[in-house]
């Protein structure tokens, strides 16, 4: 019997509001997944003015919370093939970092969840839970000595990411086009 554990407790201050989470992809891995043929990624983070943030809210109906948006321009040789943008959204239980690939024309080419964390109280503080979590990344080899753990709950809506992408498309319209 192989038993493994895909949940990793993040080293956060976790006394009253513990979180556990999973890193699915690093920045480099997400870039490779979303722009398979890209040969270069040029960091081009975006600084937004108040007016631009207001305009983004107006177009997307979603508030642009932060002034700086992490972004890279993807190239295949000399050809600009799209934007790679890292964004964060917060749901009722979950805190999510995701990457979006947006074409130069403003079409969504793909979305990947990079990091997913859920927050709960109580039992995550307990020794039983803590023992099961291993601080590592997804690409690290694991000794298969532990159980996989998973959560089955009422389905969570992914509306928060959908709204995040709407906001990024508005950002593209306002700033990147």
């Amino acid at each position, binding site marked *: 019997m192989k038993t493994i554990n895909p949940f990793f407790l993040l080293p956060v201050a976790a006394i009253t509001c513990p979180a556990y989470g999973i890193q699915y*992809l690093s920045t480099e891995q997400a870039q490779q997944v979303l722009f398979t043929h890209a040969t270069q990624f040029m960091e081009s983070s975006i600084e937004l003015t108040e007016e631009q943030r207001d305009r983004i809210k107006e177009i997307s109906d979603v508030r642009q919370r932060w002034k700086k948006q992490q972004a890279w321009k993807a190239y295949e040789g000399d050809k600009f093939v799209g934007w790679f943008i890292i964004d964060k959204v917060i749901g009722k239980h979950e805190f999510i970092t995701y990457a979006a690939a947006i074409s130069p024309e403003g079409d969504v080419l793909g979305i990947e969840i990079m990091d997913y964390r859920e927050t709960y109280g109580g039992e995550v503080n307990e020794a039983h839970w803590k023992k099961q979590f291993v601080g590592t990344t997804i690409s690290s080899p694991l000794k298969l000595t532990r159980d996989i753990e998973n959560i*089955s709950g009422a389905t969570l809506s992914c509306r928060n990411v959908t709204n995040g992408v709407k906001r990024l498309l508005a950002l593209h319209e306002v700033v990147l086009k």
Partner: protein
Amino acid sequence: MILQGNIHKRMKPLLGTFVEVGIVTEEDSNAYRNLFNQTFSVMENMQNQMSFHDRDSSLSRLNHAKGEWVELPEDTLRVIEYAKQLYRQTDGLFNCTLGGYLVKRGKLPDHFDFDYQVNGSADEIEIENHRARLNAPFLLTLDGIAKGYAVDKAVEYMQMQGITSGWVNAGGDLRVFGDIEMPVYQRSNEGLSHLIKLKENALATSEVNQFNRYDCPSHIINNQGEWPDDCIISVRASQAWLADALTKVLALVPYAQRKKIAGRFDACFCQVTDKPSIDKSVTESKPSSYMSQNTI
């Protein structure tokens, strides 16, 4: 025995929720990039076929056909056939013809310019060769079964590609295969509780919550459009479509009958084995009056 291996996982927003695909192999993740992409594509294809929200889906074509025959993809027909079987086997408790109720209540989108019934009978769905038709003007919704079916298709695809151990978790519709065992915890407003150890099986969870929580997309009603009492139902079954569908059935029957009815399908009504820990930050928050919907 201690075995060495790598776990590779990816997650995407899909099927109206977050879908995680995981595999256990000896190789590095780059070898599996295409496999992950294709596995997600398989599920996306199911979404495109069976989404009620999408005006252009196969399901929507059938709902708009006003009783005419509609050619449908094999998977859509299979899911409709499963839904018809379950309707008969559960004396109508599993009813995929209640789309009208959900549209009238704003739980599903209204892209219909004709009068429709709020409910109907699955016996009035006719299937013949590669096509189907609705013999009454109700609206078919496959929300209660299609997400589980998409999970089964993803597992089937991975196994065809030679993956021996892995899992797919579509926001609680979970299937595990191969030589791994997965303890599962049930999420509720009160925290997490140990539920079951899952091996070579599927598990689905649905919740009825009178406050229509914003982040809880499922919506279970009976044939008269009434909500059952609040509950969280988890069902273990051999396949995810069956587990998914049976959660809706068990939510509609009294507690005392749930175990027996699940047993008729070689399935198991699962209950938590420890007390949930209380997360006051969750239980004290005001429930939202808004409910989102599955996109499939």
